[in-house]
């Protein structure tokens, strides 16, 4: 992995070795299935300017991103969470599009991995 890699494939390789193909497939499915709900939770919280709820929803995404080696998503969510903690509603709002993009990319990456697991 280089410092600028968006995804750390080695994390998923290690995870596959440790928990097995089937379990990794299930983890990926859970992450992908829960994605829209988590993003909606961030957007809803932003609409209400409820920074605490924003931070909570962002934190939940960040935990999964950190454990699955999804670095760009992890870093972006970390920035947004920091801004939410500082009370910067507009700052978080400005990152929402990037966040959606990074999430979509992460899901696509994980789905490709999921397909490889099927082979």
């Amino acid at each position, binding site marked *: 992995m280089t410092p600028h890699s968006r995804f750390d494939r080695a*994390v998923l390789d*290690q*995870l596959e070795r*440790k*928990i*097995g193909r089937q*379990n*990794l497939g*299930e*983890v990926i499915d*859970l*992450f992908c299935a*829960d994605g829209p709900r988590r993003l909606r939770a961030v957007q809803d919280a932003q609409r209400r300017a409820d920074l605490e709820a924003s931070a*909570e929803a962002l*934190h*939940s995404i*960040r*935990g*999964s*991103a*950190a*454990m*699955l*080696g999804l670095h760009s998503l*992890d870093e972006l969510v*970390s920035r947004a969470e920091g801004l939410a903690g500082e009370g910067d509603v507009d700052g978080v709002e400005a990152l929402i599009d990037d966040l959606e993009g990074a999430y979509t990319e992460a899901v696509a990456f994980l789905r490709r991995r999921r397909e490889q697991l099927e082979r």
Partner: protein
Amino acid sequence: MERVLVVDDSLDQAHMIAGLLGAASYTTEIARSGSEALEAIAKEPPDLVLTDLKMPGLSGLDLVEEVVRRHPALPVVLMTAHGSGEIALRALQRGAASYLPKRLVVEELVGTVERLLELSRIRRSRAQLLASLVESESRFVLESDPALISPLTSHVEQMIQAQIPTLGENERMRLGLALQEALLNALHHGNLELDSKLRETPGREYFLLVEERCRQNPYCRRRVYLTVGLARNEVVLTVEDEGPGFDVTSVPDPTDASNLLRCSGRGLYLIGTFMDRVEHNAEGNRITMVKLVPQGKPGPGPAVVGEEAARNS
């Protein structure tokens, strides 16, 4: 098979953690919130709790505190996406056994759990062993260094806690205070021959003299001897110094509360109040303090007599 309770409101993360632990032959149970975790622990305590930091309702830090309060022997590990030392410190201060950033979970989770469960097993065996110990005697020899007194007192309190768990926390603390006073008396007034009346005069003269005599012959060569005798029904602490002794008939009356306000003799007053029996030898350089242990919660273990002699010279 050892059981780990995983507390995480995020299903994918909980599933991943359960997968990692399952692959290492641990049984896992998942709780989706702090309150669900407390219910699960009350129903059947696991061998270890692994909790996320941020959850709706009870936070991971609050859960750590609550589990430590209700089940002090149950190790709790806090995990969080935050990798900050500040949160790790707060978790450890609240009683967490360890802390794991989520980015290290895949690599380090199983190793961390293994180490903590091993420690837990050792602690349980030690507690069982100490419950079988009916009598012990430890001896310490202290140099003229006031800095050794607090750590020694704390160590003796831990020995008492481990070997005589029936003695309550308050009584143990009073016993520790009495021991500290006796050790200070032995060092300051016994070995360093400082007059306690000096403490009643304003200024730092008394403490400067302590420092000076700790480096000066013959005072600095003298030692304080402590013997700790622990049995199920009593704690016997004997403190002896190598000074010239004192007039034991001048011991303050433990029934006169005005003695508590004086600098000189206050230590002996506290000792007399906190202990059940106090005796001095004729020379006045040895004090024996006895605390009786209430026998409310009996349960004699196997008749094994152990002896531990520790020397610190």
